[in-house]
């Protein structure tokens, strides 16, 4: 198991493996997003109460889900880089933050656009919306903290600690609609029981969720590969790679 772990931590090996993974992620995410969005916007019947405005769910829910999952990935990478000092984990932490911030922003904006016609307001300081805003600030804080240090090792360590501290926000976001009275409705998709969203509407949603996850993986790999080349630019294998092009 340790050998496997160490193999993964080698930037060179990761660069090669991610190269073969990239086209698959790209194709799956583009296909799932195009089909899912077209299906959700054009072929699914409108909601019995909200009419057509419910269709923003096909962007809002995947963006929010991947923003939270991306944070967990980033915090895990932070823990690994703190404990084992693995360079690759530090690169994942650094590269995941801007993608997560963008997705959180998208979730907040689409939520506000939906909130206006549905609730009658763009914004309410309820537990769910406020905790997602905190998630956005955490992402921004991690990006800023990483850039604030000239010493990149110190930057990685400080950002990893912030990422770990902020991880407590993820269960708060997830269960905020259960623990407190909020304006935001509870989850419609259930992992254990029957979902309260009709299967006809759920299928394209699952497709766009898959698409967003693959999109996150795709962009993350692109950024990490770029970071690897930059940090290892003085090594022999990178020089050989560039010269062979």
């Amino acid at each position, binding site marked *: 198991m340790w050998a496997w772990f160490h193999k993964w931590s080698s930037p060179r090996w990761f660069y090669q493996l991610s190269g073969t993974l990239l086209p698959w992620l790209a194709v799956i995410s583009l296909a799932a997003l195009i089909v899912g969005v077209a299906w959700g916007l054009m072929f*699914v*019947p*409108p*909601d*019995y*109460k*909200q009419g057509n405005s*419910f269709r923003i*769910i096909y962007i809002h829910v995947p963006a929010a889900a991947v923003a939270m999952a991306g944070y967990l990935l980033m915090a895990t990478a932070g*823990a690994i880089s*703190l*404990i*084992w000092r693995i360079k690759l984990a530090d690169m994942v932490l650094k590269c995941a933050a801007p993608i997560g911030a963008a997705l959180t922003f998208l979730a907040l904006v689409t939520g506000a656009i939906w909130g206006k*016609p*549905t*609730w*009658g*307001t763009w914004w*309410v*300081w*309820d*537990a769910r919306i406020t905790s997602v805003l905190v998630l956005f600030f955490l992402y921004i804080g991690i990006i800023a903290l990483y850039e604030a240090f000239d010493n990149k090792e110190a930057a990685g360590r400080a950002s990893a*600690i912030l990422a*770990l*501290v902020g*991880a*407590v*926000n993820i269960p*708060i976001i997830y269960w905020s609609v259960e*623990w*407190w*009275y*909020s*304006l935001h*409705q*509870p*989850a*419609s998709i259930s992992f254990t029981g029957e979902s*309260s*969203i*009709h299967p*006809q*509407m759920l299928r394209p949603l699952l497709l766009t969720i898959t698409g967003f996850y693959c999109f996150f993986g795709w962009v993350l790999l692109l950024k990490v590969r770029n970071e690897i080349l930059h940090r290892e630019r003085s090594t022999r294998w990178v020089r050989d790679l560039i010269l062979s092009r």
Partner: protein
Amino acid sequence: MHPLRRQRLAIVLLIIAGTAAAAALLGYALRENINLFYPPSDIVAGKAPVGRDIRAGGMVLEGSVKRASDSLQVSFIVTDYQANVPVTYTGILPDLFSEGEGVVVLGQLDAEGLFHADQVLAKHDENYMPPEVTDALEKAKSQSGAPEPSKPY
């Protein structure tokens, strides 16, 4: 595991446990304040302050909505099916406002227990259905006779 790494792992676990404990204490201290609104039973029980801006949330009681014929004034009852709070509001209601649906109102409670709302928000539930499905559900309900009580959230 290398002792140094074991020590770092312990520190990481300590950070997680510490922030979780801090968040739990914070949530415990603020438990009432994080709630966006008071349910009607808390208001009737006198737990909500009088004359200050608060929010009340619940369902709009079926058959309780009364509109004035010469103004935008509207009155209705917010209920959690245990207690009722009468609400009066002047203004435009959100599209999704209707009887038997969730609602959150912002305003002040007066000494008589009447809620003067400055803002009315519709609270959407987690159910998403095509219209044909609701028609079918309605039909099934009317055939079986007994109407299902709508679920208070």
